[in-house]
């Protein structure tokens, strides 16, 4: 799996879940402050990442994933491990 494809897949999940344009989904973009997600959106977003990448993300880990870049790094690390 290439790095590019993980980034693209993460972006696509975010666009689908939050109804935002892909141009807004930059690595620094914060889910709450920049992409308008509320607490329920965030739960659903994590569920969508779990589904897309076949992972389980604990609530503790999920709380730290507040920007697009952090999610990409996290998933790269997790899929690298597996």
């Amino acid at each position: 799996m290439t790095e590019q494809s993980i980034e693209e897949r993460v972006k696509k999940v975010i666009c689908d879940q939050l109804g935002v344009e892909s141009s807004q989904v930059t690595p620094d973009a914060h889910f709450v402050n920049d992409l308008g997600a509320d607490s329920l959106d965030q739960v659903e977003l994590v569920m969508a990442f779990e589904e897309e990448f076949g992972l389980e993300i604990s609530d503790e880990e999920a709380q730290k994933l507040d920007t697009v870049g952090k999610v990409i790094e996290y998933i790269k690390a997790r899929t690298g491990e597996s």
Partner: protein
Amino acid sequence: MRRRIVVTGIGAVTPFGVGIDKLWNGLKEGVSTANIIEHFDVSDFPTKFACVVKDFKPEEYIDPKKIRRLDRFLQFVLVAAKLAVEDSKIDFKDIDPFRVGVVIGSGVGGLNTIENEAKVMFEKGPRRVSPFLIPMMIPDMASGMVAMEYGARGINFATVSACASGAHAIGVSFKSIKYGDVDVVITGGSEAAITPLGLAGFCQAKALSTRNDDPKRASRPFDKNRDGFVMGEGAGILILEELEHAKKRGAKIYAEILGIGMTDDAYHMTAPEPTAEPQKKVMELAIIEGGIDKNSIDYINAHGTSTKLNDKAETKAIKLLFGEEKARKISISSTKSMIGHLLGASGAVELISTILCINNSFIHPTINYEEMDPECDLDYTPNKGREKEINYALSNSFGFGGHNVSILAGKYKD
């Protein structure tokens, strides 16, 4: 000074389509909207038809981003509320938000969402259940969402009384304005329960018609060969407003709400009380509150479900209250003969129908009436509508749980 309450806006999503024009044209013409259900497989169900809202395109009215997070009953209510608010030409920016309430009823809330997420829960486990399950299924989210849409911060909750939910919402709204708590209430009901579980439940309760070979003739209130109700879905919203408040902003006034009765049978989970005393009383209370002579009632928009027991009990109640002679002179009709039973939305959509009849001096028909039942022998306006001036009308709603509501509406006179 006595506060008078008028209707200054109406909006509806019904099996006839989106909007009041489609509803009124359909009711006037007297056509059925029942059809075989196509949105899920009905082969195992004893009843295979309903009055479904077809070609519903919420994205034409609601921000498409929001729609995914809205159960169908919430989509219906947001569209109906938008139409009613636009119709009333009210500008909420000019009004103290704490003087504007929202009270909307729903019999079951987001049944479709409950079913989908229950399936996820049992197949994939609790970690896959949507965080939106609860907000999408609770019946009070209809009033919550409408309040958010218009910044309404006064009284706000849901009424839940099965098929009387919409009528109760209007009742509570009416009394809140009358008591002086608020000046405007966005009120009504919404329901979207034509789902596998909803249909199965009503089938098993033996409440539905099984006339699968002829769905359009299945809803036949008061006819001798009626065999149950037909499920419908949709939403009806009315803007209730204190008269002086409405006059001050030059609002169009559809009708006046004069009184609302509320009683309970205290008898059985689903069957009406056989003496019909509580149903008689509920109409009487509405008339007493309105301060009119009962002999001036021109029209009753009946609950008229097309079940054996309801239509018989309702007829009996009307005769008990008015006496045989007057009862025969009142025009009666059932909106459910055409759009089916909208459950928690029925009371609201049927009050709208009643108001349209008042404004058009026209009584819409009860369709599919063929053979007289000796126990239902009043004037149900069979099959063809009729021109008639209506000064005062009652709209009845009765729900499982024995809940009875009757709303007295009248032509607006200065």
